């Protein structure tokens, strides 16, 4: 097996250099690309069958730890979950022997937790300061994303921030505590949610998540700018800002909250309404922008041209965009001179690119899809042609 293929199949963490090797390998061997695509389908198929046949991850935790837990240690939901999972687990193991491996692993992890607890609160019952880990409570912060990896920086916040965070929750008991919280400080952060949805948080944005797998609706609260890719489910997905509530079912859209709330819809359908009950909602279609200023009763609707309006997300979005427009947009984004041959100017392109990947990588991907080549001219400009 060639070195590159082994690297592709077995590598744990991807870099841009890895992807460059991959593209070169595909150019040399299109059958390899086809085989790897089918391998991805196989993996996805295996994962899908597991999801159908095997109890949820939370249920697996309860199954693995039921000898350590009293019924009183579980909520009513957890007791129901465990009962249902217990009825299914034998069949799940017959179909997927790896379930036994997972249960064993969780038990090992529970043993590890027992050891750390014992270290922190030793047999005399008194914690030894020397044994405790350094580092105060920290509010979650994010880091710039690299390619498509979910990367997070080490937390930097001081103990007082965490105390204020806890205090904020406690001082206002009417506001339920979020399940999870994320905030991006100096760079973009990509957040993956429990339901498979993804959110790109712009610098200084924050996201509180108020749902888990047992919730009947998916609700988040956004401050700042966020670009949402929402998985289609029966559970509605709601984004709350200071003055607006946006409800979606399987869509891609961005929300900005600098002056009121602005929703730009890329695909799918959303409804947008003021958070006060007196206001009236509207429904947006792809390519439409909803604007709700503070105090407005009804959002205003405008058309917008993609990829305009998404510069803040770091994404370059093209939807049936003629190549002439694509290269103009790339030229502006990267301060380059890029042109396209006459026979390609009207060819429509649909794709989404992270601008931080760089002009060379993005042009290479587009040219590859077109069956074209990128040539650097004597004056330094780039020309896409067949």
């Amino acid at each position, binding site marked *: 097996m060639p070195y590159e293929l082994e690297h592709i199949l077995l590598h744990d963490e991807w870099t841009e250099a890895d992807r460059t090797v991959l593209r070169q390998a595909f150019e040399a061997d299109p059958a390899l690309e*086809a085989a790897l695509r089918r391998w991805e389908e*196989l993996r996805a198929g*295996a994962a899908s069958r597991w999801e159908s046949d095997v109890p949820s991850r939370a249920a697996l935790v309860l199954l693995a730890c039921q000898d350590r837990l009293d019924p009183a240690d579980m909520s009513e939901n957890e007791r129901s979950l465990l009962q249902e999972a217990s009825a299914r687990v034998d069949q799940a193991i017959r179909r997927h022997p790896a379930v036994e491996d997972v249960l064993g692993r969780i038990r090992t992890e529970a043993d590890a937790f027992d050891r750390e607890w014992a270290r922190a*609160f030793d047999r005399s019952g008194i914690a030894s300061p020397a044994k405790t*880990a350094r580092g105060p*409570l920290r509010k979650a912060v994010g880091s710039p994303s690299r390619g498509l990896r979910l990367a997070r920086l080490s937390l930097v916040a001081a103990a007082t921030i965490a105390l204020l965070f806890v205090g904020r929750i406690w001082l206002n008991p009417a506001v339920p505590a979020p399940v999870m919280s994320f905030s991006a400080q100096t760079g973009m952060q990509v957040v993956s949610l429990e339901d498979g949805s993804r959110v790109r948080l712009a610098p200084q944005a924050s996201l509180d998540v108020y749902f888990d797998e047992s919730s009947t609706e998916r609700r988040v609260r956004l401050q700042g700018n966020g670009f949402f890719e929402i998985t289609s489910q029966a559970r509605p997905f709601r984004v709350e800002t200071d003055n607006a509530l946006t409800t979606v079912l399987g869509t891609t859209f961005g929300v900005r909250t600098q002056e009121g709330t602005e929703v730009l819809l890329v695909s799918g359908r959303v409804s947008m309404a003021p958070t006060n009950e007196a206001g009236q909602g509207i429904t947006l279609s792809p390519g439409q922008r909803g604007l709700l200023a503070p105090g407005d009763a009804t959002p205003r609707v405008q058309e917008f041209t993609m990829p305009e309006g998404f510069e803040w997300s770091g994404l370059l979005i093209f939807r049936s965009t003629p190549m002439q427009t694509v290269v103009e947009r790339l030229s502006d984004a990267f301060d380059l001179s890029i042109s396209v041959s006459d026979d390609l100017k009207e060819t429509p392109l649909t794709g989404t690119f992270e601008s931080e990947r760089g002009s060379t990588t993005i042009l290479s991907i587009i040219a590859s899809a077109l069956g074209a080549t990128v040539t650097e001219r004597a004056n330094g400009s780039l020309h896409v042609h067949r």
Partner: protein
Amino acid sequence: MPPIADTVQLASWVREARDGSEAALTHLLRALESPMRSFFISRIGRRPDVDDLVQNALLRVHRGLGDLNDPNRLKAFAMKGALYELQDFYRGRYTPKERLFDIHEAPEIHDEPEVSGARIDVEKALSSLSDKARRIIELREYGYRYEEIAEMVGSTEAAIKMQVKRAFARMRDAIGLVLLWIGSFPPLER
């Protein structure tokens, strides 16, 4: 520095926190941070993700205090939260970043017709795998690293990776046969 605590003190803080004491809640969460952090480091190493895992595990404890019927059972309660967070971490480990083909890689050109018959029969492909290979693939999709899978199944990382390479080669051969078959007969009705 986290407060000195024993299990009796922890139970007392749980009661006080449930009665509305902000100070007790803060003491409780700060006391739990140390074992939580050490636990996650022992499982996934000293990574930036540890901070988020600790934060979210403590949030679970905070949100669920109302469900903790016996304050003396705090350890079991905290353990559940930590294990839930760890399983969620595994779920998110590979899905976004390891995917080889996605919308960022394959822009669509609308004047090209969609290629028919290009998707595999997943069941057929899965059945072509050995039981061991399928087990490894499922554990990988759950989110474990190859060295973790090796530990779980009682093998070596090298042997696990060899199983993956053989499974790929077997599938690649099977796909070749399927494509030839489709080319030689009328298309199947789906």
